[in-house]
C-alpha cells in the first residue's frame, strides 16, 4: 500500500470549527475592540507629542495597583475559561463565583486608585493625560460592570441542570464578552502606566 493510499483510507481528523456564542455578538465585540484601538492611538499620540507632560502625569498613577488589577483580570479569565469547559461537560462550574470575586476586586482596586489620584489633586480637567486616563479607564470600567452582569448570568446558568444548546451559546457569548474586558485592559495598562 502506498503512502497516498494510506492517507486516503485514514484521513487526518478534521478540526471542528465553531463560533463561540452567537455570530452577531462578534460584530459587536470586534467593533468595541476597534473603538478601544482608537483610544489606544490617542494615548500613543499624546505620549509622542507631549512626552514631558505625559511622563510627569504618569508618576501620579499607581502601577502596583495596575499590576494587581491585571493579575485579577487574568485570573478571572482563566477561571471563566475553565468554568465554561465544566459547563459544557455538564459538571458544576465551581470556578465562576471566584471569577466574579476577581471582577469585583478589580472594581474596588480601581475605585481606590481613582480616589488616590483625585486626592493628589488630579482630575480629568487637569490636563490631556488625566482626561484620557479617567475617560478611557472609566469606559473600560463600564464594560467591566457589564462583564460582572455576564459573569452573574454564567453563574445562574451553571446552577441549572443540563443547559440547552441555546443556553450554552449564550454562556459562550457571556464568557467571550468577559475575555474582551480582560483583553482591553491588557493594552490600557501598559499604555498608561508602563510606557514612559
Amino acid at each position: 500500500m502506498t503512502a497516498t493510499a494510506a492517507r486516503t483510507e485514514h484521513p487526518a481528523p478534521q478540526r471542528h470549527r465553531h463560533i463561540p456564542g452567537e455570530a452577531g455578538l462578534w460584530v459587536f465585540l470586534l467593533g468595541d475592540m476597534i473603538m478601544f484601538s482608537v483610544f489606544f492611538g490617542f494615548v500613543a499620540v499624546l505620549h509622542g507629542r507631549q512626552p514631558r507632560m505625559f511622563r510627569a502625569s504618569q508618576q501620579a498613577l499607581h502601577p502596583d495597583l495596575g499590576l494587581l488589577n491585571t493579575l485579577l483580570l487574568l485570573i478571572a479569565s482563566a477561571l471563566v475559561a475553565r468554568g465554561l469547559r465544566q459547563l459544557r461537560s455538564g459538571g458544576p462550574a465551581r470556578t465562576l463565583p471566584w471569577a466574579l470575586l476577581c471582577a469585583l476586586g478589580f472594581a474596588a482596586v480601581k475605585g481606590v486608585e481613582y480616589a488616590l489620584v483625585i486626592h493628589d489633586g488630579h482630575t480629568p480637567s487637569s490636563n490631556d493625560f488625566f482626561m484620557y486616563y479617567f475617560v478611557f479607564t472609566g469606559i473600560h470600567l463600564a464594560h467591566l460592570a457589564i462583564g460582572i452582569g455576564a459573569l452573574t448570568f454564567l453563574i445562574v446558568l451553571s446552577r441549572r441542570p443540563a443547559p440547552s444548546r441555546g443556553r450554552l451559546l449564550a454562556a459562550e457569548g457571556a464568557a467571550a464578552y468577559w475575555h474582551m474586558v480582560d483583553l482591553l485592559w491588557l493594552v490600557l495598562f501598559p499604555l498608561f502606566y508602563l510606557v514612559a
Partner: protein
Amino acid sequence: MWVFPVLVLATLSSWLLGIEGSTSTLIGCAVVAIALVKVRLVGLHFMELRDAPAALRGAFEVYVVATGATLLSLYVFL
C-alpha cells in the same frame, strides 16, 4: 494549561521593564509588543478563536496586527 502562566510571566516582565521609568523607545516598544502578544493569547485560547472559522479568526488576527503596527509606528515615529 500553559497559557495562564505565560500571561502572568509576560505581565511581570513588562511591569519590570516599565517600572524602571526608562524613556527608551526600544523598551516602550517591547512593552507594547508584549501587550499585543498577550491580547493574541487571550483571543486565541480564552476566547477560543483558534477553533473559530477562518473568517472570524482572521478578523481577530488582522485586528491584533493592525493595532500593534499602528501603536508601534506611533511610538517610533512621533
